[in-house]
């Protein structure tokens, strides 16, 4: 769990949303036993699995890409990589101690002044910088903890209906990670689909009525052998990274060695990699700054549209995702103009899960995308 999560706990109940009933602030809350887990394995020390790393990075650069689904063999570092992400994320500014991580404008917009009161101005606000939150949604979570519910302790002791925000609140403007996402309960999937589509969480239960922003980058991982993902949820993910067991012995030796080194002495290992971590963080930050300047020429756009058409992709989400991702990739490469080369690098990630599934199709979706891409670019001899 991240720092923000615990920060949110401390102030849970305070300033609870724009809702009507739950306005009273709580007294000081009892500190809960929330032990921070040891620092994660460094992102940059992860060997191979470039597809997954790249798609996570692109989502940091542009959260509108819509998240990543990482599917693949067990024991290949899926969750290690996602959990390592927190350390390379940039900082964001939020209203101090705000459980929903809102920006000043968001806050002002939501907390309309009461009648007769002076309107709040940005000057009244104190802000703070926090790292982009990464919130872990465990499979055993119940709906009330995901969406938030009334704070039982306060309700029992003082009869106050205070809203206790859930994981969706904590993940606003951050990442929401679900390991074994293909095993997630149907009911929670419904909640997620709903919130992901609207960007806000609406709670109407136990006599409280709250709505708060919940825009997050959805990251899921799992092993396809354990079960399929609901198609609607699959479609929600911007990118789909595939991950397979590395068969190169040297690389595997390296993985084992680094793991042992890390286990032997966390601190020393983290220190050894801190330069790399900072370098990557800087690179991501630069890309984020460059992103608004990146443009895509019309002919590239046309080619992208043709590619999606030839692959028979329904709807426009495919085109939108591939375009955004290509922009982010160009920015990450330090380029201001998107070329078809950029598109080529990320087309598989953006489209793989959007191809219509044919039960008897044996060709890998990635290959199919490459083949169509070559055709669009006029590179391929007709097949």
């Amino acid at each position: 769990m991240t720092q923000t999560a615990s920060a949110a706990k401390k102030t849970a109940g305070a300033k609870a949303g724009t809702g009507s009933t739950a306005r009273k602030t709580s007294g000081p809350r009892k500190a809960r036993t929330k032990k921070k887990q040891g620092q994660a394995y460094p992102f940059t020390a992860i060997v191979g699995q470039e597809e997954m790393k790249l798609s996570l990075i692109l989502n940091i650069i542009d959260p509108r890409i819509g998240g990543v689904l990482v599917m693949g063999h067990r024991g290949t570092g899926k969750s290690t990589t996602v959990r390592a992400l927190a350390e390379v994320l940039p900082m964001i500014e939020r209203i101090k101690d705000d459980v929903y991580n809102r920006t000043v404008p968001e806050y002002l917009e939501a907390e309309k002044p009461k009648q007769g009161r002076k309107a709040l101005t940005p000057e009244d606000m104190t802000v703070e910088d926090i790292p982009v939150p990464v919130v872990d949604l465990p499979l055993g979570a119940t709906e009330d903890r995901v969406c938030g519910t009334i704070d039982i302790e306060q309700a029992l002791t003082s009869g106050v209906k205070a809203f206790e925000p859930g994981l969706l609140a904590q993940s606003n403007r951050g990442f929401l990670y679900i390991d074994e996402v293909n095993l997630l309960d149907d009911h929670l999937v419904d909640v997620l689909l709903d919130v992901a589509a609207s960007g806000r969480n609406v709670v109407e239960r136990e006599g409280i009525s709250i709505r708060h922003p919940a825009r997050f980058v959805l990251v899921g991982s799992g092993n396809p052998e354990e079960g399929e993902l609901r198609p609607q949820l699959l479609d929600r993910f911007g990118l789909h990274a595939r991950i397979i067991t590395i068969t190169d012995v040297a690389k595997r030796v390296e993985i084992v060695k680094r793991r042992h080194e890390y286990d032997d002495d966390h601190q020393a290992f983290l220190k050894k990699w801190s330069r790399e971590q900072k370098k990557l963080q800087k690179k991501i930050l630069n890309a984020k700054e460059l992103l608004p300047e990146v443009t895509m020429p019309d002919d590239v756009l046309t080619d992208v549209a043709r590619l999606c058409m030839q692959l028979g992709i329904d709807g426009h989400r495919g085109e939108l995702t591939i375009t955004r991702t290509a922009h982010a990739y160009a920015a990450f490469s330090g380029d201001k103009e998107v070329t078809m080369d950029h598109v080529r690098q990320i087309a598989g990630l953006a489209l793989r899960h959007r191809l219509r599934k044919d039960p008897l199709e044996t060709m890998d979706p990635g290959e199919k995308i490459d083949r169509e891409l070559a055709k669009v670019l006029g590179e391929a001899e007709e097949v």
Partner: protein
Amino acid sequence: MIAFTDIVGMDLAKQALMLLAVDPSLGGVVIPAAVGSGKSTLARAFADILPEDTPFVELPLNVTEDRLIGGVDLEATLAKGERVVQHGVLSKAHGGVLYVDSLSLLDSSAVSHIMDAMSRGAVLVEREGLSEVHESEFMLIGTYDPSDGDVRMGLLDRIGMIVPFTTQNDYRARKLIVNCVLGKNGSEDTEDELKMLKGLIEAAKEQLPHVSMTQEQMKGLIQSAVSLGVEGNRADIFAVRAAKASAALAQRTDVDEDDLKLALKLVLVPRATRMPEQEEEMMEDMPPEEEMPPDTPETEDQDAPDDNSTDPDEEEEQEETPDMIEELMMEAVETELPDNIMNISLAAKKKSRSGSRGEALNNRRGRFVRSQEGEMRSGKVAIIPTLISAAPWQESRKKERKKKYGKVNTALIINKEDVRIKKFRDKSGTLYIFMVDASGSMALNRMRQAKGAVSHLLQNAYVHRDQVSLISFRGKEAQLLLPPSQSVDRAKRELDVLPTGGGTPLASALFLGLETARQAKTKGVSQVMFVVITDGRGNISLKSLYEKDAPKATKEEIEEELQGLSATIFAEGVASVVIDTQMNYLSRGEAPKLAEKLGGRYFYLPNAKAEEIAMAALS
């Protein structure tokens, strides 16, 4: 109580447990063994060789999610007026052992939670208003009888050592076991032995940080993992640790041949997905390592702060495995593979024919997801949500009551409308067992239809929670090609190569289907549906499987067998659909008869498309 040192036989299992005691980061030991082999006795005796006060928690098979993960302790909460947290079984095992008997019968949501705790070293509790992290680092000891079914691969992957499957056959050993159980061993000896063993393990723990492994040895182990097709990286790490722990137990600082052999046997070979001799062609099939985009972090990896010795590029040149390790591997594989590995990874196919199992664990096997308003009697009351909904009204209700009666006796006033009922979700829906006639000339066609139908069913979002299994029958005996699964990928892979032609052992298929159905039911599948795709003419009897020299069964005998089996299937509540693929209108009406026997529906679909079959099964 039988002590660790008293247990006879199961040497490899004992060795594995000792390695684990030396290095708990090996994660655990799985012991597959038949009933009565003393596996659970051994697992429980493991506590003997651990330091005193090490937690040893046994996980009951019917554990609820609340108890597993933890939650609010209701009694204490009410008494104290503030939230009191109750730790779950996973957290209670922290720093010690979590023992699961019959690991393969554990329900899948419990397995998921155990997996999650193992990979995190902690349990995240996000339930009923609670948000906590409980430490949960434990060694998992799991025993199971392979005839009960498989343990989920994802779980096995997180457990360091898997003891090869053996049945205890040695007569003398059995006798000794019995003697031990009866307590006929000198107890003083036992105590001394235990003390010695504990000392040995303590010494090994101290030795462990000083054990080193050469670069060659490590490469050798990993090369073996690659050639055995071991998935993921965890096994590599476990293998290295196991070898080092073994060296530490022998008070050496260098890893030697025996250590490597032991690591191969306990860690890598049981995870093999293919035989090493297929290596060359398989390697070509492997997709090449992905090309790195020019500007990804990989390029940064190269100039990473690195001691030179670990630069991957340098090692590229000396690709071959050191001969010694290759020999070791072949030796380990030869001795272990034919019997043992098959038993582990293909346990489902080798199931005993012993027939019925114990009763299914039923009651609330679903998973508690949410609560909703409801009548007290209509289900299980969700206490916390009920309290939550009652809480805000306490003050006003008390006032009201005071006004009415003058005094208030109860601390808490709960009205009918506060009651919240737990809403469970049934864990799994229907299991569709496809039985496809792979005999005769039209087999290929039927197989293709079945494959399509299977994929179709699995991809249908509507049947999200359903599972599909596939049995093919031809020649003498039916074969379980796909154990119950939800994965399209897996189904496709398993169905890709299928031999056809030969006799029609229909009875064998029904029998196998019945066993699969029974097993699935113990794991919480609520409904089973047989989809039999055939022309209905069974001509090989079940009896011929068991009695080698039995005379060829007559038509009547086969008929009788089918009749009996069908009746049992029907009686056990399995629904059936028979899909007749007989092209000839003059067919002898065998398939409709089969449908009748099974009490199922009959479809005549000589040119059935995959979708039609899927629809028939769903209807």
